[in-house]
């Protein structure tokens, strides 16, 4: 890195911090107005990028890269996407700080289970180093041992024990002798049986072609999944979509009130 670039970076940092200091001088009402304005502009950019027809230029000044597909805002979508990704990446540290605070307190105050907190820190630091330095020869083995010996099997085991919990939950749910519970159990039974050899054996005697083939358990399961299940989930999705749109509109226009949005600044 040359000296000029380093100076530019440091100047940029100073400029940014100076900008934050200026922001801090704003009064409460001004801060709120700034927030509302920036939120609106941020949303407006993506809305305009979507609704403006292909080939639209900025007063004839900024032509889009592809006149048949893009408008003058389209080329900025990727740039802004990158910026959001980087800025969002920095937010990861918030979660990290939270975990470090909780486990750090347990460890330094020697509370019950401090050994677990120590294990957390050791595992985190070792995996971070192994992940970052895995291209170095000496760290390849460490990375492989941690990843294949611990991370992968622990992940698979944690998710697989859900099979037991989900079965217990199902037993409780299906004990309720209602029409709905029965229907749910039948649908679950069909879908599960269609995925295991013993289930498929039940209808193996039916022909694989012709109308009778649609009575085979895998065909019934496929029909339940692709017709009834898909349509019901699609209806739920439409509801979620309309709610999402309404909520987005409220956020975009800063109409949302509540503990987060209505706080003093």
């Amino acid at each position: 890195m040359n000296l000029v670039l380093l100076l530019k970076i440091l100047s940029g940092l100073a400029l940014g911090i100076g900008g934050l200091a200026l922001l801090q001088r704003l009064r409460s009402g001004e801060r709120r107005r700034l927030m509302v304005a920036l939120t609106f502009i941020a949303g407006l950019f993506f809305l305009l990028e979507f609704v403006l027809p292909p080939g639209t230029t900025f007063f004839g000044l900024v032509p889009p890269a592809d006149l048949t597909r893009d408008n003058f805002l389209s080329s900025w979508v990727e740039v802004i996407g990158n910026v959001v990704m980087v800025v969002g990446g920095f937010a990861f540290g918030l979660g990290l700080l939270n975990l470090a605070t909780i486990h750090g307190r347990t460890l330094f105050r020697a509370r019950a289970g401090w050994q677990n907190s120590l294990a957390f820190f050791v595992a985190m630091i070792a995996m971070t180093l192994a992940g970052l330095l895995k291209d170095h020869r000496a760290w390849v083995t460490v990375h492989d041992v941690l990843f294949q010996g611990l991370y992968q099997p622990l992940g698979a085991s944690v998710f697989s024990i859900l099979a037991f919990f989900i079965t217990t939950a199902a037993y409780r749910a299906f004990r309720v002798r209602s029409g709905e519970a029965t229907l749910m159990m039948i649908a679950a039974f069909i879908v599960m049986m269609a995925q295991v050899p013993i289930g498929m054996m039940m209808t193996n005697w039916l022909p694989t072609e012709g109308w009778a083939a649609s009575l085979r358990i895998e065909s019934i399961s496929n029909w339940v999944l692709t017709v009834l299940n898909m349509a019901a989930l699609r209806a739920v999705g439409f509801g979620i979509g309309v709610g999402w749109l309404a909520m987005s509109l409220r956020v975009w226009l800063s109409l949302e009130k509540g503990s987060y949005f209505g706080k003093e600044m």
Partner: protein
Amino acid sequence: MKDLVIVWLAAIATLAIYSILYKENPIYRFFEHVFIGLATGYSIARLWSDVLLPSWWQPMLGGQWYWIFALVVGGMFYTIYLPRYAWMSRLVMTVLMGMAAGIAFKGFATLYIPQLAATFRPIFSPAPPYLLVNNLLIIITVVAVMTYFFFSFEHKSRAVRGTASLGRWLLMIAFGAIFGSTVMARVALLTYRLWFLVHDVPSRGIPHL
């Protein structure tokens, strides 16, 4: 040697996690924390090597000095710990939410409008009868389930009540199907782990003399 260590570590880790099925115990707790630590460390490494290094650090050191402003904006998140400056974390958060709101309009149009078109397909056409019956069933299911979730007015009319009731029954079938698929996915994972314990550990974990 490395393979041996990996196999035995994996076996111990698997058994430690399954020990919770008997009862809550310190070994399970220990390995649970190890897993959280490893997952966090893995995420940090991936975040740096997949996002920050290629999209921020390298361009910045490559001459695009203005990427330093991303650090300043990202740093605004951390003002949440300083009550006097905490409003700045909300500023950056609301801008991101504004962007998400703007994207939502495009998302809704691209995600749900094609689904709407795919839902209302012809029920009278030269297509095979079973397809027409399926098309009709899809329309009925979508309308009935949406009616069940329609809370803007009270379901007083018999027609609305009946449609909502049908929607609830159809939802139960869908939930059953989702449940069945989820169980099978988890059982597949469990089978894989058990296969590892009874097959891979003896074959790879015990050196053949």
